């Protein structure tokens, strides 16, 4: 019945979240969203790198069909004129809006985030995005560097802010406009963190004292790992602080202490991201749209935090391909919301400690390529047909079936999950 869609995609976020069982992280706002959502424990990206993963789930096609394995081709020119998820919603009467990093910028989205095909208005990119890789990190020498580990005093940043803060502000502004105009919308918000550089407000370090940070459980390169499978984490080696360590190529390792600092900063960046998501969802409450908006929360792929002697993504390991994936569907994953009732009150990670249990959890193995058909079904739109093989000539079809059939909205389901039911749908 004409639900809006708020689609939140986070750059390089592995499921280090309280709602995924991580004991260290402080992510109360995402955990609160999870407590109202169906959460998928085994969701995987089709390729663990930005552009190929995003083009895959936004078109509903696998990399072998988009033929994008790097960053340097646009699918409409190079493979086929595939419809995208936002384009489909736009063609079905939705106002489609992009804030921050949703498509990967550059050639792979035609230098326009696939506007005007996918979006109703030109996509918004936070003005401070352009400083992302500048020397803005204050080193121990007091000078500014382009570091990997980069806690900052936000007031010292260009324009006194950070890209994701600007994205949240713009997204809230758009929500207010949609509410005022009573416009049905598909709003995609792409957050940059915890993608490198790990640049976040330095106060989030207090949440993770270094003495509490351990190395990865398996920080060594596995004995029988084929050399071809190993990724030599070239991108982080080019950051000033890592370069200064003069680490050997390709296997390193990084010094233990620095490994712990990276893990510390990744967690701090996740909590910083959690506050941005919290502010955005709180605003959804403020404008009274929580009862009429589907919220999807996911990431383009994961990130290795030292496991197997690896960092970054660029591999087929689960830590690089497994992603958070949860759906809040008012009236389906929660009982209907009373007018004016707050569903996502902002929670401060510095003071909020209560653990929240996901509303529902499915252990089914699912894929990001199913997002397109799943959201179409949840919004009551015609679900695109399954693609024939090959499907280069077919504009509208999908290579990922809808996963709504795995949703189960009753409390029993949660109990059964605990009871070890391996097929919630069948058990329900």
């Amino acid at each position, binding site marked *: 019945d004409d639900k809006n869609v708020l689609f939140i995609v986070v750059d390089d976020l592995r499921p280090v979240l309280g709602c995924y069982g991580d004991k260290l992280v402080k992510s109360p706002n995402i955990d609160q969203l999870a407590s109202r959502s169906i959460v998928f424990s*085994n*969701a*995987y*990206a*089709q*390729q*663990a*790198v930005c552009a190929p993963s995003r083009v895959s789930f936004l078109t509903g096609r*696998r*990399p*072998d069909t988009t*033929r994008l*394995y*790097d*960053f*340097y*081709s646009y699918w409409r020119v190079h493979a086929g004129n595939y419809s995208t998820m936002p384009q489909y919603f736009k063609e079905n009467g939705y106002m489609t809006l992009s804030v921050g990093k949703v498509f990967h910028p550059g050639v792979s989205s035609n230098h326009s985030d696939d506007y005007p095909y996918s979006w109703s208005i030109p996509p918004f990119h936070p003005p401070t995005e352009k400083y992302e890789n500048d020397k803005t990190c204050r080193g121990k020498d007091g000078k500014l560097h382009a570091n990997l580990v980069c806690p900052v005093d936000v007031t010292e940043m260009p324009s006194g802010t950070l890209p994701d803060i600007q994205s949240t502000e713009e997204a809230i502004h758009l929500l207010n406009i949609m509410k005022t105009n009573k416009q049905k919308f598909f709003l995609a918000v792409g957050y940059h963190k915890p993608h490198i550089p790990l640049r976040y407000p330095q106060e989030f370090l207090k949440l993770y004292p270094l003495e509490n940070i351990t190395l990865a*459980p*398996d920080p060594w390169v*596995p004995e*029988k*790992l*084929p*050399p*071809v*499978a*190993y*990724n*030599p*984490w*070239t*991108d982080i080696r080019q950051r000033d602080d890592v370069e200064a360590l003069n680490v050997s*190529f*390709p*296997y390193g390792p990084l010094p233990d202490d620095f490994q712990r600092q990276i893990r510390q900063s990744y967690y701090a960046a996740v909590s910083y991201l959690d506050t941005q998501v919290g502010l955005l969802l709180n605003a959804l409450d403020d404008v009274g749209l929580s009862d009429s908006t589907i919220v999807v929360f996911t990431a383009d792929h994961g990130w290795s935090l030292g*496991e*197997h002697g690896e960092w*970054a993504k*660029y*591999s*087929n*390991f*689960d830590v690089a*391909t497994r992603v958070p994936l949860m759906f809040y569907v008012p009236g389906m994953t929660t009982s209907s919301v009373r007018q004016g009732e707050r569903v996502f009150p902002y929670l401060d990670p510095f003071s909020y400690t209560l653990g929240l249990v996901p509303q529902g959890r499915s*252990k*089914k*193995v*699912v*894929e990001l390529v199913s997002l397109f058909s799943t959201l179409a079904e949840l919004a009551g739109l015609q679900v695109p047909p399954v693609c024939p093989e090959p499907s280069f000539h077919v504009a509208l079809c999908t290579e990922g079936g809808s996963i709504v059939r795995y949703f189960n909205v009753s409390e029993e389901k949660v109990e059964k999950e605990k009871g070890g039911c391996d*097929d919630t749908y*069948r058990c329900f």
Partner: protein
Amino acid sequence: NEEPLAFSQYPRPADTPQWNSDKPRLKDIRIMGYSMRTVDYRFTLWVRFHPNNFSADFEDVHAGELYMMETDPNQDYNIYNNTSHGSFFKKML
């Protein structure tokens, strides 16, 4: 009730790590790692890839990985070479 599968893939320019291993350009891709996973295992085949016609040659296997999640949840112990993996191969194809 076929067990749900998830597929992922990753390209490589060569059999050993080099400076462009993480992000090879299409023209430099020579091997594609195809992964198939369920809640029980991850099976990966690294096969010859031809960028000029986007084809993967599953008869030219460069390496394989197999991890059983129940005994090796962190995927540290590749048992590909000491198991018969024909059924996984067939399933992937």
